[in-house]
């Protein structure tokens, strides 16, 4: 019996059941019980079977890690170190930040796991499910968690894999916050509705070891712009040139009124006779009519109307300027809605 097995036996002889604290319930209860009874062969078979079921059922990584760590420990105590390393590697790929409980697993197990974790270059991506980004101003944030020190390339790519924008390329120790301002490499809004956030982990040799990517659904939210004010109708503007009507009215009115003055004696029946007063009044009124015709001649500019129209045009232009400013403000208020999908690995490996 190896030293590890001895430790396990001693712990169990002391009635210590720390494994129960980590997890004894759920899908792996039978395998874990066999492990605790030092029946490692049965434990490995049972755990492998249960893991296969969960994997086939598409269970999340958090439900599988417990079985994997017991399976790796069981394989290790069965003397199958390569198999244990493979299981631990799979476990690190599923959860780069996972660490076995040192109170449950002996140092033989944890040291092997730690060495596997140090050699396995993989990451996990944590992104908020839904984010509103103000393009160019607000930032979309993603947290990259590394299994160990490594070099990563964090990029945004089109669905077909073509590069969209590079976000980070360099070393990562424990974790890394990457930010995206919602624009493409040219500083424009994304022309597509779906891109992927891809993190490629590089081995110390420089080769890409694992690739993890998260699909991002993009939706550009543009507020409606305000309508332009209706153009000024012709009826809203006063004529800026005099027509001929008032001129003719002045001339004809003067003539008619002069005629009325001259005709008064014959209308009232008085003795007509020459009258300088009558001629003077008729002449004055006739002269006023001619003067009125000249003052109201057709085509004469009408300053009062021109001023009123100018005021109305300026008011309309002010409305246009206000709407333009409002639309500029609304266009600047464009938001990019980002919905993150489920992370996936391009090179999944079964344990």
């Amino acid at each position, binding site marked *: 019996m190896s030293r590890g097995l001895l430790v396990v036996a001693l712990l169990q002889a002391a009635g210590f059941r720390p494994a129960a604290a980590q997890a004894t319930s759920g899908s792996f209860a039978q395998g874990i019980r066999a492990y605790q009874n030092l029946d490692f062969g049965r434990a490995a078979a049972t755990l492998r079977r249960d893991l296969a079921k969960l994997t086939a059922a598409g269970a999340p990584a958090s439900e599988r890690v417990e079985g994997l760590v017991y399976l790796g420990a069981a394989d290790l105590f069965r003397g199958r170190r390569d198999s244990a390393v493979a299981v631990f590697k799979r476990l690190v790929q599923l959860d780069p930040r996972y660490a076995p409980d040192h109170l449950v697993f002996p140092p033989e197990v944890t040291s092997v796991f730690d060495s596997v974790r140090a050699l396995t270059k993989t990451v996990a991506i944590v992104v908020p499910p839904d984010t509103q980004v103000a393009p160019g101003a607000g930032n979309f944030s993603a947290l990259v968690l590394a299994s160990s020190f490594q070099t990563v390339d964090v990029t945004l790519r089109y669905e077909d894999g073509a590069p969209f924008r590079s976000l980070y390329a360099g070393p990562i120790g424990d974790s890394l916050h990457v930010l995206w301002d919602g624009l493409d490499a040219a500083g424009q809004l994304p022309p597509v509705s779906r891109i992927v956030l891809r993190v490629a982990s590089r081995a110390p040799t420089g080769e890409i070891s694992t690739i993890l990517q998260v699909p991002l659904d993009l939706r550009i939210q543009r507020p409606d712009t305000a309508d332009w004010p209706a153009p000024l109708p012709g009826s809203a503007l006063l004529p800026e040139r005099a027509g001929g009507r008032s001129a003719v009215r002045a001339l004809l009115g003067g003539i008619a009124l002069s005629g009325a003055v001259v005709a008064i004696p014959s209308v009232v029946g008085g*003795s007509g006779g020459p*009258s300088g007063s009558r001629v003077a009044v008729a002449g004055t009124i006739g002269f006023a009519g001619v003067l009125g015709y000249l003052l109201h001649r057709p085509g004469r500019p009408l300053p009062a109307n021109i001023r009123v129209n100018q005021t109305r045009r300026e008011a309309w232009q002010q409305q246009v300027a206000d709407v333009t400013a409002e639309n500029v403000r609304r266009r600047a208020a464009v938001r990019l809605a980002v919905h993150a999908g489920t992370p996936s690995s391009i090179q999944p490996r079964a344990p």
Partner: protein
Amino acid sequence: MRRALLLAGLSLAAGTLTAQTLAPAGVLTVGSTRVRSQSGQFSGAVVGGDGTLSFGRLELAFRYVQGKVDSVGATAASAGHDLVEGSVLLGARPLSWLTIATGPHARSYTLTSGTQRWVFWELRARASGAFIGSAARGYVELWRALSADVNVPESFDHAQGGEAGMIIRFARAPLQARVAYRMDHTVLKSALGGTRLETVDGLMVGFGLDWH
């Protein structure tokens, strides 16, 4: 039914009255007057004033002039004859351009034979309208005497007259200027079957205030 109609009419009139304001106008006038009759021909200058007080479609008009007239061809040393004339007319405007008015019109002038006093009760109709923009309005007025009281030997037969002129209102101030020509013609019948004609005409020039 009749009471309801009366109430409706009163309420309508009250609504109209409350919506109106008084609009006074007063004009100082000078002019020349010529009196022609079978007893002679006189002319001279007169001065006076006239005014109106408008309230909605109602109008109260008054006029007063006085002056001296001399016989045509008389020397400057000869004494003139006093002429005084006035009228008070109450009118209404059934249409915006038409005014119907009635009231007394009195005239008195002193001749060598004594002072003649003429009192006519007139019915007047005036048509007016702007003809040079809104600044110049022309008007034509005709009147006819409904009755008369004259202290002359002849009996009154009929009298009528007319006036035509132009009123200029200034745009930037409540001022008006006026020029007009008027003529009154009276026919008297003598007991012997003869006819006496009296014609008074003249030029009037005025300048005054107008709050229309």
